Structure formats: structure tokens, C-alpha cells
């Protein structure tokens, strides 16, 4: 008994200097020292210590906190992580229950020792200790979780490369695995999923970085195929802006048909206009060619049509009409899209026939803008 008291005195450490860990180490040492003595009279210890303990209970300290503290220290002392994990982190929970669970006799010695060591603890210190304990518990949990997750990551890294849809699976599994959801665990799971969701992380700068979407194949061939298809669709969209009247058409084949028709119509317009210039060239001899370039270049396409409508049109003499006709027939290759050829020939014939009667009509027909002419022959074609 005296011996024990002396050791107790040695154990009375200044609570300001020592941390929980240090106290724990000291306690372990003390336990080792007293292992031999322990089994002798545990009952006596308990008996002597109980009134003291009850006194402590009646003090300002929350009984739940005290009990929690002791249990935690017991667990730490025994190095039993299994029980530790099941131990609830939340302190206030314990504080609600006022029941004191007396530990079984085999742990009574430890219990008594811890109790005696904590008898000098004031209320302030318990708060500090509780925080320290929580930090330590967090550290402990981190270490367990990290160690567990390390192996988890290694296992998963192999399989993730094959299956792309495991982005969410990893997160779900990560959350389900650790019952205690701490910040570090979620961060770790987030990092691992981020690493695994990138398809091609290449160090060289001249590669194209592509991110595969969920549920899509990830081999290099399909990725290259997908990139090529996206390029093509982008170009088709640009062409849609250039070619008038193809907003409603979706699909590559229809778009290509529209593009082909438009290019053909533009080429034919160039032919028409060169014919017209040729015909006019023969009739008009002298032209002020010096001022032409500036005027021609500055003529906006849209503005000139309403201006020209009011001006007198050209008159094709019969010879010119003939020549234009034969030119049309020659340039219009009959086997080629006959509908278009007939439509355009009919348009030009109409203009030529009516030129003798009215002045403005052929002019307006000849001077139709590309869109108008295109729509006209489209209507004639379909």
C-alpha cells in the first residue's frame, strides 16, 4: 500500500506540462511496474478508491466526459483498434447518459489507475484533454484510413483503367467503407477519383487532351475516331452558316447534297455573268476603265440591287439573244441534273423573250441575288 502510494505520488505529474500521450506512457510504465502487485488485491483497490471516485463524480466534471476519457485511455493502452473504431466520436452523446459503467474486474486495475491519475484534473483541463484526445483520435483514424485506403487505391488503380464508369463507384465505395466520415477520407477519395477519371494524361505537350465521358469506350482508336467526328461536325456547322437555307437539314448526307447544289449554282452563276459580260463587251466599246476598280470593289452586294432596279436595263439585240441562247445550251450539259438545266434555261428564255416587251423584267431576273436564284431553281427542281 505504501509502495503504491509512493508510486502514485511519482505519478502525480503537473498537468500543465504533460500531454495525454505522455501521461499515457507514464501510466503504462506504472502499470508494468505494478503488474506483479496488481493481482494481489484488486478488490482492495477498488474498495478504497470507490469513495474517492464518487467524490469525483459529484464534482463539476461531467460524468460522461470522465467515463469517456477513461474508456478511451483504456482502449489506447490496450492497443485495440477494433474497439476504438466502434467507439463513437461524439462526446456529447456520452455526456447525456449519466450511467457509469463499471468495468469488469480485469480492467479494474487500469480503471483505478487512470482514475487516480485523473483525480487532479480540473474542469478546464478536461476540455483541453478532450480536444487533444479528439485530435489524437482523428490522427489515429487518419492513419488507419490511410493505410487501409492505400491498399484500396492500389487494388483499384488496376481495375479503374479498364472501366471508365467507375468514377462514381469509387466515390460511393469510399463513402460506404469508412463509417466515420472525416474530411480527410473524402478528400482522399476525391483525389483518387480525379486521378482515375482522366483518360489520357500525357506528359508530352503535342498530344491532344481528351476527356472521355461516362459510359464511353476509352481505347485510343475510338478516342481518335470521336475527335475526328467532332472536327467534322464543327466544319459542317461552319458550312451550314455559309450555305443559305440549310438550317432545317440535319444529317451529313442531306447537308452534303445542299452544299453540292449550292456550289453548282455558284459556278453556273459565274458562267452566266461571264456570258453577260461577253455579250455586253461586244456592244459597248469604250469604257472608263480607270475608275472601275474602285467603284467595283466598293459596291456592296446587297445595296446595289434596289438601286439598279430603277435604272434602264440592257437591250439584247436579236443576234445577241441568239448567241446567248446557244451559249446557254452549250454550257448547260444536258445529262447533268436535267431539272436544274431546264429550269435555268427556262428562266433565261423567259427573260430573253420578255426583254422586248418590258424593260425591267429581264434585268431583275438577271440581277437576282444568289439566294433568290438558288431558291428559284430549287423550287423548279423539287
Amino acid at each position, binding site marked *: 500500500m505504501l509502495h503504491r502510494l509512493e508510486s502514485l505520488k511519482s505519478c502525480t505529474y503537473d498537468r500543465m506540462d504533460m500531454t495525454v500521450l505522455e501521461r499515457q506512457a507514464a501510466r503504462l510504465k506504472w502499470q508494468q511496474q505494478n503488474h506483479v502487485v496488481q493481482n494481489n488485491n484488486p478488490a482492495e483497490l477498488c474498495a478504497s478508491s470507490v469513495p474517492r471516485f464518487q467524490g469525483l463524480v459529484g464534482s463539476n466534471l461531467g460524468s460522461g466526459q470522465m467515463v469517456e476519457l477513461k474508456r478511451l485511455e483504456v482502449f489506447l493502452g490496450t492497443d485495440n483498434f477494433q474497439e476504438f473504431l466502434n467507439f463513437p466520436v461524439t462526446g456529447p452523446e456520452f455526456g447525456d447518459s449519466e450511467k457509469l459503467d463499471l468495468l469488469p474486474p480485469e480492467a479494474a486495475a487500469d480503471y483505478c489507475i487512470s482514475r487516480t491519475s485523473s483525480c487532479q484534473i480540473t474542469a478546464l483541463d478536461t476540455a483541453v484533454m478532450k480536444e487533444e484526445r479528439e485530435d489524437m483520435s482523428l490522427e489515429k483514424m487518419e492513419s488507419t484510413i490511410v493505410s487501409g485506403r492505400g491498399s484500396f487505391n492500389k487494388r483499384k488503380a488496376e481495375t479503374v483503367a479498364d472501366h471508365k464508369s467507375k468514377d462514381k463507384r469509387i466515390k460511393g465505395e469510399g463513402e460506404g467503407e469508412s463509417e466515420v466520415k472525416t474530411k480527410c477520407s473524402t478528400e482522399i477519395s476525391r483525389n483518387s477519383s480525379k486521378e482515375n477519371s482522366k483518360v489520357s494524361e500525357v506528359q508530352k505537350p503535342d498530344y491532344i487532351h481528351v476527356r472521355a465521358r461516362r459510359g464511353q469506350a476509352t481505347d485510343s482508336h475510338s478516342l481518335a475516331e470521336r475527335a*475526328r467526328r467532332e*472536327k*467534322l461536325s464543327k*466544319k459542317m456547322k461552319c*458550312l451550314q452558316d*455559309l450555305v443559305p437555307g440549310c438550317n432545317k437539314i440535319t444529317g451529313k*448526307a442531306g447537308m*452534303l*447534297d445542299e*452544299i*453540292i447544289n*449550292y*456550289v*453548282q449554282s*455558284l*459556278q453556273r*452563276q*459565274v*458562267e452566266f*455573268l*461571264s*456570258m*453577260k*459580260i*461577253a*455579250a455586253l*463587251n*461586244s*456592244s*459597248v*466599246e469604250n*469604257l472608263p*476603265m480607270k475608275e*472601275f*476598280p*474602285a*467603284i*467595283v*470593289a*466598293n*459596291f456592296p*452586294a446587297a*445595296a*446595289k440591287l434596289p438601286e*439598279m432596279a430603277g435604272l434602264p436595263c*440592257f437591250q439584247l439585240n436579236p*443576234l*445577241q439573244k*441568239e*448567241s446567248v441562247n*446557244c*451559249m446557254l445550251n*452549250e454550257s448547260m*450539259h444536258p*445529262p*447533268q441534273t436535267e431539272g436544274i438545266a431546264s429550269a435555268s434555261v427556262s428562266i433565261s428564255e423567259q427573260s430573253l423573250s420578255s426583254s422586248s416587251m418590258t424593260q425591267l423584267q429581264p*434585268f431583275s431576273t*438577271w*440581277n437576282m441575288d*444568289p439566294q433568290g436564284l438558288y431558291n428559284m431553281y430549287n423550287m423548279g427542281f423539287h
Partner: protein
Amino acid sequence: MDLQNMNPSSLKSRFATRFLRALTKINAQKPISSSSSREIFQRYRRIKVAADKSMAYSVRSRRSWSRATLWRLRTRSPRSRLATLARRSSVKTRTTRAASHGATVVDRKSHGKENKEDGGVEAEELRELVPGGEAMDLCNLLDETAHYIKCLTTQVQVMRTIANLYSLH
């Protein structure tokens, strides 16, 4: 309409100057008095060639279609022996396809190229329309088509203006 604001080096102005220069040359070459249909037809041909040439020269060699057009124009002219030699030594398919643009239309779908199947039949037609499109994959073909359409619209605008100006006088 502000005459000073136009960009002097835009495609439109470049083409306009070149084409007008060619037109004056054509006017100066042949006497205008004779206006038979044959003459007018020849003139039309020359004007069309001049239009294509001036357009291709305005684009220089930046685009594949302009390069193909210039090459085609150079080898088509039967003036020099060098030109004929060049034509003979060139790829026969290209010149024959260019020359017989309209004649082989019926057989267009029958001998479609097997090695460039990625666009289908429509891509084949597009390749024939755009100069120099035979040797291109679909991706580049679409690029060239877009630029070609833009240049064609400029060409049509300028030629229409010229025709209107002609008709005024």
C-alpha cells in the same frame, strides 16, 4: 456607302482589279466590231477563264483549290510545247476528269473511288466540283469547300457589278 472605308487588300478588291485588267486585255485583243455568235462565244470562254484565273491568283497558293486551278489552267493552254509535255506527264486521271467534267456525269456513280469511302457518294460529287478535291480526305475537303464557296460568292458579286456597270453605259 463610304468609298474610302473598303479594305484595299481584301479578296474582293484584289479580284476586281485583276479581273478588270484581264477584261481590258481581252477587249484590246479582239476587235469588237464583229459580233457573231461564235465570236461572242469565244469571248465568253475567255472571260470565264480570266475570271477563274484572276480568282486563283488573288488567293495565291494559300489554298489547295487555288493551286489546283492554277495548275489546271497552266496545263490546259496548248500554246507551248512545255505545256503539252507537262500535260502528258501529269496524272492522266486528273486532267481527264477536269476536261470531261460534264461528259462522264452518267458514269459518276459507277466508278466511285473505293479508297476514299469516308464521305460516300456525295463526297465524290463534291470532290469533282471543288478543284483539286480528288486527293483530299473529307476533313480537308470541307475546309476547302468553305473557302471555295466564299471566293465564289465574291466572284459572283464583282462580276455582277461589272455587268451592271457595263449595261449602264
